[in-house]
């Protein structure tokens, strides 16, 4: 059995794909999402074998979404697009799997055959898979917010998940600290914290060799001894 997730913002588009997949007896549709942020959390939650991913979606495109997932956690991605010259060119270059809307059932069957045979391209082969992030999608009070990277003051993990804190908003994101550290300019100041250097107002050195960062909006962020040196180097403080 292949578990499949559909992420597309257009309802008729999802409907059509569901109808086509329904003809394959060994494919189970485990969920459908109407945007990339929901899709991100569904991927983490449902761990599908394959994701049918639309490219043009509100605020976070399909390509951008892929870059927000750790390669190890990435399912097989089949991009679905109506018309996008740039993306198509990139797919060809990276030998990524893609379907064109309206979807040709025979072409879809070919993709399913590859999947059944267990062939899946390496994760890095996705176009834009390692491109830097511009924004972090978060959920606050059942709403999706996108926090622009330059507004982020710091990020930390706690029992609720990964918290993104900006001057006047904050939320929980599906993105891991690892991805955030790799794909953004945020740097570790503590094992559980990433700090935006541009948002540092001051650093208070403590007696025990650790320190505390005060952000532009006055929030306090711990700095462990291990990371203080790196932070100082980056800020050109000797």
């Amino acid at each position, binding site marked *: 059995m292949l578990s499949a997730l559909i992420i597309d913002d*257009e309802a*008729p588009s999802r409907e059509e794909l569901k109808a086509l997949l329904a003809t394959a007896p060994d494919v189970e549709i485990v969920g459908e999402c109407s945007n990339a942020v929901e899709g991100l959390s569904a991927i983490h939650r449902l761990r599908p074998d394959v994701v049918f991913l639309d490219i043009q979606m*509100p605020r976070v495109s399909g390509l951008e979404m892929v870059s927000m997932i750790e390669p190890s956690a990435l399912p097989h991605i089949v991009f679905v697009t109506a018309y996008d010259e740039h993306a198509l060119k990139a797919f060809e270059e990276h030998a990524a799997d893609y379907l064109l809307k309206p979807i040709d059932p025979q072409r879809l069957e070919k993709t399913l055959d590859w999947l059944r045979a267990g062939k899946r391209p390496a994760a890095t082969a996705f176009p834009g898979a390692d491109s830097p992030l511009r924004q972090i999608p978060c959920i606050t009070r059942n709403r999706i917010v996108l926090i622009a990277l330059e507004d982020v003051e710091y990020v930390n993990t706690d029992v609720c998940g990964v918290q993104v804190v900006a001057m006047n908003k904050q939320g929980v994101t599906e993105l891991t600290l690892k991805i955030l550290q790799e794909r953004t300019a945020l740097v570790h100041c503590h094992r559980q914290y990433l700090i935006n250097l541009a948002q540092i107002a001051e650093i208070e050195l403590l007696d025990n060799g650790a320190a505390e960062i005060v952000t532009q909006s006055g929030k306090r962020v711990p700095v462990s001894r291990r990371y203080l040196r790196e932070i100082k180097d980056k800020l050109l403080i000797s």
Partner: protein
Amino acid sequence: MLELQNINHLALIGSLLQQMCVYLVIAYMLSKTPLFAPLMQVTVRLPDKLVCYLVFSAFCIMGTYLGFQIEGAIANTRAIGAVLGGILGGPVVGLAVGLTGGLHRYSLGGYTDTACAVSTTVEGLIGGYLHLFLLKRHRADRLLSPLIALGATLFAEISQMAIILLLARPFDDATRLVAHIALPMIVTNSVGAALFMRLILDRRETLEKYSIAFSAKALRIAERSVGVLLQGFNEHNCTRLAQIVREETGVGAVAITDCEKLLGFVGIGADHHLPGTPISSPHTFYAIAHNEVVYADGATIAYQCSVSKDCKLGSSLVIPLRGEGNRVFGTIKLYEPKSKFFSSLNRTLGEGIARLLSNQVLAGTIEEQKRLLVQAEIKLLQAQINPHFLFNALNTLAAIIRRDPEAARSIVQYLSTFFRKSLKRVSDESTLKDEIEHVDAYLRIELARFAGRLDVEFAVADDLLHLRLPTFSLQPIVENAIKYGISQMLEPGKITISAERQGDGLTIVIEDSAGLYKPKPDGDGLGMNLVDRRIKIRYGAAYGIDVTCQPERWTRVTIRVPVEEELVAC
């Protein structure tokens, strides 16, 4: 030789005045030549100064020759040349003229030769000094004043008499001579200088009047012909233009040609100079081939009409019309009939008119290119939007066919309406009704595609639907609102299209509830920029597109066009 006893003052004044008349007639005739041009204004150019020196030296010498001898002396009008030379040419010219006249006089001998040579030089210097004086006082305008010339010459002649008394020997003879000739010479020379100056002034005024009339003529032609050629360099417009040029210049006939054929002909001989016929005149061929003005005045260069032997036209001025890169694209020809004695054909005016027409044609070409460019851009825009929209629409359709074939049928209908309207409309303007139908078909498809995420509201009163605006003004804006607005919203959104008449303007507002507008330098905003440019080119900078945005709340695009009431058949 006159005996002093036999002459009385009045007779001497009379003779000298007669002599001056000859002198002034010569001056008058000379004033008709280009030699006089440098004398009419204050100039520092060396060639002008040289002309000034030559002319006045000639007058100086002539004054001596025209004088008559009295007891070995010469009663004369030499002073006029020296003083005026100084006044008009400055001290250097004055000195040179005085010296030349003086040395010439000296060469003729007589007991006053030295005195006369010195005094003439002094007279030239007096004029020159006056020149300097007036310039320093910033009263250069007074240089040409006849009264000042009179005063200066009066003073110069008195000085001359004094110098004769000082230098000429025997003193008794000199005294007697001065007693007799002083009054006649002072009077004649002063009056002569004033009259001479008046002559120069008159000549200048005539020239000014002429050039004013000339400019006025050119300006009137310019004014009347504005825009005529903007619509193209063709037979109709060229005939209109030829008419204007003929009315304003009063020449016998006017023709305008391109490089192959006659485009417009108005005036004498219009019965056989027919627009549309090929050029046959050798003068025109020459003008086109060599990019030169050809003036067949009928006297030095013969003119014979190349079409008909009975043609009454006797002279022709052919001026090439030059376009981009100075390339000849046609000619304008001015004709006078054989019967006309004084030709009013004027080369300079003709060249001016030709330049004017050339510029107009050039402007027309640029206007045409601009129009073509916009048209090409619209085509590009249409081609650019279609694939993305088309494939998404087809995909939506694929899904709906499965579920609701009836609904799918109506989508197909809207799709065909949309494409028919985008592809087939060739006219430049359409009604608001047309535009709204276009947008409606587009939005019906998008409504199906975004199923539940899009809401559309039209608020356009029926009495505005007949108003006109450039074709394809609305749809690109609505498409932008979907592409950069609604489709980027995580929640459902709404598009509102409203229209309102404000005075003599029609305002259409397209509002989306996304508020995600970001000004783009170019590229993605192509559709909106293009619509804005087209409206501005057509109606001016007061109209066009205006965007306001309340981030995350709404983006409002306002299209403003003037209301041009059409006469609708009732």
